[in-house]
């Protein structure tokens, strides 16, 4: 087993080191890092905006580049949150707690330097986990029939919508909405049209890019426009020399970093608990273990490296179910999976055997990309810091162009551009009503496959709905679903969502929407 994984990895490095793949990985990392630094651009918006650039590419290059964009954007987001106290992506909210105080003390550079290092350690651990666990998982998953796949998807969808931020009921509603949106278009089995209202452009369904850019682009711009406080660049004067940590810093950061990594990798194994939860849990654990918990929040290096290591370790770990089962854990993974599907690749347990170049190439490129990021972030920090000062009034109109042309390029059709505007408006209404649109994407990507497997399971069982609890593996998944819902109701009745971590809770401004809007609450640049 281990031998097999290592030979796969060897092969993967061969794929990733092919010149054009290496180039695309570099481009992805660089552009992702650059866009991710910009305040208000989280990984979701960054990937959606850059997705159209990959249409003309080969699948391997495309996925390597998008993977690079994703973790590049995460590195960039950390810079934005530590120096400006602006968490563009929910996992970074915890980083702000101690990162921004450090910046105010003039130690922002050290925080950044150690963040880069901690992220690298976390990511490396996550990748190792991916190398050895994915093949095992695939072996199990290949035995699954349609009933098992169905219940597993149900579990993934439920976990993704209830464990994420916000009210669980609203999360489930968004997932159901996403599943429905996925059913728009021509029915695969009977060929009849559903919910197209006579528009032939909708026959192929709603365009994934239009949905993603509408929900995470336009809706987010509408949320942030004119609401953004002018960016305070008072503390952002950080150069390469400020990044070097002292020996004492290194010593203090070492164990928290590893603890964060372990917490993150454990969180990645539980379906639905993405990086956000991982970073929260890591921070809370660190505070509990610490000998002086009262100092957390005043600029402690432990409070920066621990959640960052945890986030990166869990993000890489999230690739395990995404690549080996075809079931994404959060919206970012759903988007990457959608990108694979656009390239004509069927996700699922057969992916590793059918397209070893994609899987192992991706794994190998993670290593390469993360090393590139360390090398990029240290010398280029001065440039990144300058980019923080780009005002929003230049940013969002330019992004609007990328949205329009990107959606147009998906099909070379202006219809989709109209689609994105409509979805954007709808997404903004949902945001204002307190919904989080991320589960929509999860439901949308999984929807068609869920329906297909559900139908097949019913056909095999001759219409017996109890097949899902009669088959043992499937019964386990269903039981987990029930436990998940039951525990949600239990905690709701006890009214105890608050015992998570009060300090952390206020920092994420509770469930404040991602992006710039989040800053309205925590960003009071105290002198």
């Amino acid at each position, binding site marked *: 087993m281990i031998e097999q994984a290592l030979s796969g990895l060897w092969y993967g490095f061969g794929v990733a080191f092919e010149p054009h793949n290496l180039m695309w990985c570099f481009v992805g990392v660089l552009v992702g890092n650059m866009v991710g630094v910009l305040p208000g651009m989280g990984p979701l918006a960054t990937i959606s905006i850059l997705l159209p650039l990959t249409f003309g590419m080969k699948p391997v290059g495309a996925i390597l580049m998008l993977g690079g964009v994703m973790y590049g954007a995460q590195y960039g987001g950390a810079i934005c949150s530590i120096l400006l106290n602006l968490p563009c992506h929910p996992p970074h909210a915890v980083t702000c707690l101690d990162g921004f105080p450090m910046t105010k003390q003039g130690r922002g550079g050290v925080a950044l330097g150690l963040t880069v290092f901690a992220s690298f350690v976390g990511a490396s651990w996550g990748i190792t986990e991916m190398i050895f666990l994915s093949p095992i998982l695939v072996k199990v998953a290949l035995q699954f029939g349609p009933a098992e796949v169905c219940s597993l998807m149900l579990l993934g969808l439920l976990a993704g919508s209830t464990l994420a931020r916000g009210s669980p009921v609203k999360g489930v509603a968004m997932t159901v909405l996403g599943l429905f949106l996925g059913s728009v278009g021509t029915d695969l089995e009977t060929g009849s049209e559903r919910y197209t209202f006579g528009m032939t452009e909708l026959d192929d369904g709603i365009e994934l890019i239009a949905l993603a850019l509408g929900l995470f682009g336009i809706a987010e711009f*509408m949320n942030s426009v*004119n609401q953004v406080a002018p960016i305070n660049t008072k503390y952002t004067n950080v150069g390469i020399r400020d990044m070097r940590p002292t020996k004492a810093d290194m010593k203090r950061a070492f164990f928290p970093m590893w603890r964060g990594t372990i917490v993150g990798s454990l969180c990645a194994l539980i379906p639905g608990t993405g990086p956000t939860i991982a970073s929260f849990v890591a921070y809370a654990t660190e505070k509990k273990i610490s000998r002086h918990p009262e100092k957390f929040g005043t600029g402690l290096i432990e409070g920066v490296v621990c959640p960052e290591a945890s986030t990166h370790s869990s993000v890489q770990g999230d690739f395990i179910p995404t690549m080996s089962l075809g079931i994404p854990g959060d919206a970012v993974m759903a988007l990457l999976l959608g990108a694979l599907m656009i390239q004509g690749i069927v996700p699922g347990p057969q992916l590793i055997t059918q397209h070893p170049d994609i899987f192992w190439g991706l794994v190998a490129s993670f290593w390469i990309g993360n090393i590139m990021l360390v090398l990029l972030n240290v010398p280029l920090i001065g440039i990144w810091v300058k980019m923080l000062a780009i005002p929003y*009034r230049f940013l969002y109109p*330019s992004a609007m162009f990328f949205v329009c042309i990107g959606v147009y390029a998906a099909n070379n059709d202006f219809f989709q551009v109209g689609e994105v505007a409509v979805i954007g408006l709808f997404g903004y209404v949902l945001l204002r009503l307190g919904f989080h649109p991320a589960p929509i994407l999860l439901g949308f990507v999984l929807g068609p496959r869920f329906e297909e497997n559900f139908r097949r399971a019913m056909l095999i069982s*001759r219409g017996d709905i109890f097949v899902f609890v009669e088959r043992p593996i499937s019964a386990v998944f269903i039981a987990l679903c029930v436990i998940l819902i039951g525990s949600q109701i239990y905690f709701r009745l006890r009214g105890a*969502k608050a015992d998570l971590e009060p300090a952390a809770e206020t920092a994420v401004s509770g469930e*404040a929407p991602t992006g710039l809007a989040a800053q309205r*609450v925590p960003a009071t640049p105290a002198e």
Partner: protein
Amino acid sequence: MRFSTSLRELIGKRDFYAGGLMLLLGLGVALKGSTYRAGTLMHMGPGFLPTALGILLVLLGIAIAAASLAPEPDDHAAIGGHGGGGQSILPEHPQWWAWFCILMSPVAFIFFGRYFGMAPGTFACVFIAALGDKTSSWKGVIILSTVVTVFGVALFSYFLQVPLPIVTWRGEL
């Protein structure tokens, strides 16, 4: 005076409207879905799953709306920290003009892109979106639109070969 407070209360019931919207959406989905063939459990037709999802959405909508109406003393403490405008549907300072500009920007891209080509479409798209910002000046907006147009056309037309003519006259009429 009394009118304004009651209106504020109504707007304040954000979850009530959230649930209501889900209910209406679900109802629409289920009703339209029931016009497609549902089939049997063993041989499901195209209408089966969407109709079921619609019904589920209706139920979830009722649950969300009902939870907002039930007087929960602890609820405010739990939701109070959510920030981002609290329970109100409209943000503190509604940005009707900016919202209009952002939504008109793709429309402008469609119109100018289709009839005049990529460059005019890009310019119009950025120009209109940029007008939405309160602090923008005419000069700044024009410079920004020009810069994005030049870079955008170079990237998408020359480098990525998106098949949209750069400049044309009533292209697809």
